[in-house]
């Protein structure tokens, strides 16, 4: 990819065959199916929209309360509520694919076979640019947890999706493991084109007055600025452990946050919880990355990727 000649920095990135006009994507579950933000965000500017996780059948989700605020973060136990693949293809995708952004569909399932069927069903439709495989959602007792924490199972799911689609396959990793680099290598061997990380960290909160958990599900996924240092460390570790591109996720709310992930080795980033408290977050992060590149006199955002300086300071 050659630099654009008008003097503005080249923001284009390629993630395992997925070509993006810039490295800023929305994280699954924080941006609905795109249309929810259409009055507030210029979707045409985004690198990609990653939609709310889709399953073969619709899911009603968990009982309330489903969200609770914590220090610099939030816990959620939505329970993978979604409209199901048929409704997504019939009612959500036709609107979203008209936007000049790439569409990444996050998928989730209860069995290896279902992951494959879901991948096949989505791959027959126009307007989907990549699949992101959720093997790490901590909220539903069956399914998610086992796939995301066992390297052999994670690799098996990846292979199943890989063999049922021609689309780039991104595997979204769970941070709730002892060695995330091990998981990354497993899905790389399973045929993943890229990995995205991190999903939420399992946490909980208790109301001391009632002595009841604040979430009906008792435990939930922690997200937001509170998890950023953990996410950054994991992105750094994984990017040194695999040869496929890494997408950084976890508490990104500003351009500086995003740039940290790029320096640590991410080729692109996803903005999650920040969309919820500031719908303008993606666009201001994008503007901030451009300004940083100009200040640093870098011609391309790709020059930042993995350019952390770890040795002794000069």
């Amino acid at each position: 990819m050659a630099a654009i000649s008008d003097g503005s920095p080249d923001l284009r990135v390629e993630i395992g065959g997925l070509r993006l006009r810039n490295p800023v994507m929305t994280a699954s579950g924080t941006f609905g199916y795109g249309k929810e933000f259409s009055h507030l965000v210029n979707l045409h500017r985004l690198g990609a929209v990653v939609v709310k996780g889709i399953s073969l059948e619709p899911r009603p989700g968990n009982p309330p309360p489903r969200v609770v605020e914590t220090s610099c973060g939030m816990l959620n136990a939505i329970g993978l509520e979604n409209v199901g693949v048929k409704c997504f293809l019939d009612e959500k995708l036709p609107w979203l694919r008209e936007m000049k952004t790439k569409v990444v569909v996050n998928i989730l399932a209860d069995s290896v076979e279902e992951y494959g069927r879901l991948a096949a069903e989505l791959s027959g439709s126009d307007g989907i640019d990549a699949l992101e495989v959720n093997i790490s959602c901590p909220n539903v007792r069956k399914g998610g947890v086992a796939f995301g924490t066992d390297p052999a199972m994670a690799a098996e799911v990846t292979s199943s999706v890989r063999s049922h689609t021609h689309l780039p396959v991104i595997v979204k990793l769970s941070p709730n493991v002892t060695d995330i680099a091990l998981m990354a290598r497993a899905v790389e061997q399973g045929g993943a084109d890229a990995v995205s990380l991190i999903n939420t960290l399992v946490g909980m909160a208790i109301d001391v007055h009632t002595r009841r958990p604040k979430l009906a599900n008792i435990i939930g996924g922690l997200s937001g600025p509170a998890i950023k240092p953990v996410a950054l460390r994991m992105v750094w570790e994984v990017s040194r452990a695999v040869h496929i591109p890494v997408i950084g996720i976890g508490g990104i709310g500003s351009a500086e946050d995003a740039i940290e992930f790029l320096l640590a080795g991410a080729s692109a980033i996803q903005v999650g919880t920040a969309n919820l408290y500031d719908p303008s977050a993606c666009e201001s992060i994008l503007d901030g990355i451009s300004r940083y590149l100009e200040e640093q006199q870098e011609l391309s955002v790709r020059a930042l990727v993995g350019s952390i300086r770890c040795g002794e300071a000069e």
Partner: protein
Amino acid sequence: MPEFQEKAVLVRRESISAEIFRLSLKAPLITAHARPGQFVMLRTGPGRDPLLRRPFSIHQVLADATLQILFKVVGQGTDLLARCQVGDILDCLGPLGRGFSWPEPGRHCCLVGGGMGLAPLYFLARRLQQSGMASEEHVVLLGGRTREEVAPFEEEFFTLGYRVHVATDDGSMGYHGLVPELLPDVLTQPYSVFTCGPLPMMRIVAARAQAAGCTCQVSLETHMACGLGACLGCALPANGKKKYVHVCKDGPVFDAGEVAWPQ
């Protein structure tokens, strides 16, 4: 329905009591499109703690592109907002959600507010007044813990021309008891009932309205992260085909029959 993210300027800060505050925010786009029953999501400041916006129903819109919110200090977010000063800028999203459905022409209305639940009812009362039907045909029931909490608002609804009845928990003003207890004497004809307040109160209001052959719209409140229908965090049990409704998009105003009331 259009939605906007505006940098709203705080133009007036009223301390109604030691813990109740009313803020007037200049937000031209949101104000121009707001309907009674809709809400805004406010950031309490530029920092990351508290992280999430806070939802507030729109209490009133004024002619100078200003909207008002009314709240009691109950936690970190409302405490920060209560400390804001005139001239401060607050990031504001709105107008959000489904507001009140307009009553059929000629229908008498009964507005039942508990505590800060009166906030959206005042906006509705103003619009009803402007719609031409004489205000004294409608009735407003206000409940609160004490006189201090209710008296300023009793005065405001009275000034609009409404018949107002008050109930207080401590008997310091009006009826000594809970506001739904006033309903049997009031609902003598098929009113359109509109209510907002604590869930147990609204449950009784809805039941009494149904018993009296009245329609009833309820304005619900719950934990909410985005307010836009994206995170699906604000689910409540539904009474119908769907298992849950989402307060931010399906509501916050519902027909009482759409909600699975906790027993």
